[in-house]
């Protein structure tokens, strides 16, 4: 893509990854993504964040459409993860910048990624300012959001916040701004990004939002490192981050399962019927068709998580282990849940799932429910009642 001037003398100079689907090896980005880099032309020319190593040519092409890359004085590394710093070795060789600004932890991380002690690092911490000439850049460390090295850069004269991985979305598009695309798509993608990347750090998001209020930054543009730039819906995305980080569950339940001969699937459907009958919204996922990163946004919003697997070699099926492990790592808070599954002779799976849910701090509200081989009508009625019980527990906790 060609550069896009987002503010006077400030340019988007990133790369659109139309073909990406596998995001960092752990989640799906069904609409591709972008790697956003930002160039500020002042007395000093500064480049904020980069692109992955395999997109460096595109970054250079974009830069060359507005400057000679050798004119760049400062590189600012807000985040060391390779999707934003991978291009660094090649860019260092070409640009030979005067300084590379980064947080204290980012310096160590850059060295352990690129093994170059000799680069001209300039460590900055929260509250530090640098001058680019007419403009100032203020830094705010955002440790563990989502890496220990993460940092925000704020340009007060331009009211521009360069927010690194916060407020991003995985979306490849020819548009650059939030108001240029379909709003429900944009917020769905922002929610999915939050659920799959930011969720474990929700307590830090709360603190960060408070901190941003405290420092009194006047922001009229938030430029993240993935996806579109917020210039219109800033109050809405800040409110959404407030809401998502509070993790206040909705009157919703997620049921996910895997199945061999469809008995567990039939149980899942009857359980869903019972939950729905209580007036609770249900999302039902077979893990054969739903990827764990597509389930996660629904878990984020739901009060209840209900998981099922038949017993397979004395345990749960692998897709359940995948989903549960992934979910546990993202640390959703305040959930209730229960486990179920069909079995042939020993029947360990449902109990194992229940224990795993407990270890993920899910409050178990019903004993694991098992059916031997194929459910009878009576068994399915019991499944429905199991669902109703969960539904009632949801209603009790989310009183409208």
């Amino acid at each position: 893509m060609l550069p896009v001037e987002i503010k006077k003398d400030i340019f988007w100079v990133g790369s659109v990854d139309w073909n990406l689907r596998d995001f960092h090896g752990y989640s799906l980005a069904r609409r591709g993504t972008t790697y956003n880099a930002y160039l500020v032309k002042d007395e000093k020319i500064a480049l904020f964040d980069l692109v992955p190593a395999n997109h460096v040519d595109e970054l250079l092409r974009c830069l060359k459409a507005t400057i000679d890359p050798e004119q760049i004085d400062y590189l600012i590394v807000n985040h060391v993860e390779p999707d934003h710093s991978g291009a660094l070795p090649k860019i260092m060789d070409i640009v030979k910048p005067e300084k590379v600004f980064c947080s204290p932890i980012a310096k160590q991380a850059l060295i352990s990624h690129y093994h170059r002690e000799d680069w001209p690092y300039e460590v900055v911490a929260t509250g530090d300012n640098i001058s680019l000439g007419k403009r100032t850049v203020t830094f705010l460390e955002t440790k563990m959001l989502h890496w220990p090295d993460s940092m925000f850069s704020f340009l007060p004269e331009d009211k521009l916040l360069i927010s690194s991985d916060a407020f991003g979305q995985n979306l490849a598009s020819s548009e650059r701004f939030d108001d240029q695309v379909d709003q429900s798509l944009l917020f769905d993608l922002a929610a999915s990004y939050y659920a799959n990347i930011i969720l474990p750090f929700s307590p830090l998001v709360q603190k960060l939002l408070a901190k941003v209020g405290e420092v009194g930054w006047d922001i009229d543009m938030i430029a993240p490192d993935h996806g579109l730039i917020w210039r219109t819906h800033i109050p809405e995305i800040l409110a959404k981050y407030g809401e998502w980080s509070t993790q206040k569950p909705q009157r919703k339940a997620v049921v996910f399962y895997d199945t061999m001969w469809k008995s567990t699937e039939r149980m899942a459907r009857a359980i869903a019927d019972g939950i729905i009958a209580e007036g609770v919204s249900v999302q039902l996922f077979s893990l054969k068709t739903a990827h764990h990163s597509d389930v996660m946004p629904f878990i984020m919003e739901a009060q209840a998580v209900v998981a099922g697997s038949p017993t397979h070699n004395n345990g749960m099926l692998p897709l359940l282990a995948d989903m549960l492990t992934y979910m546990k790592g993202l640390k959703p808070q305040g959930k209730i849940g229960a486990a179920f599954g069909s079995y042939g002779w020993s029947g360990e799976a449902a109990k194992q799932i229940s224990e795993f849910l407990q270890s993920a701090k899910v409050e178990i509200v019903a004993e694991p429910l098992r059916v031997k081989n194929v459910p009878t009508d009576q068994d399915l009625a019991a499944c429905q009642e199991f669902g109703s019980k969960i539904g009632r527990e949801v209603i009790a906790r989310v009183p409208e």
Partner: protein
Amino acid sequence: MRYVCSICGYVYDPADGDPDSGVAAGTSFDDIPADWACPVCGASKDNFEPEG
């Protein structure tokens, strides 16, 4: 004495403990089991420094 995680900035306050990981309120940092990990980033106990 409060201790700060040098990786993520989490502050361990003995007054609060870390009940989610079974560390009762009132436990001094020294008395936390050696295999305890930072509840925010998972860093080990030796990554903590006294506050201040």
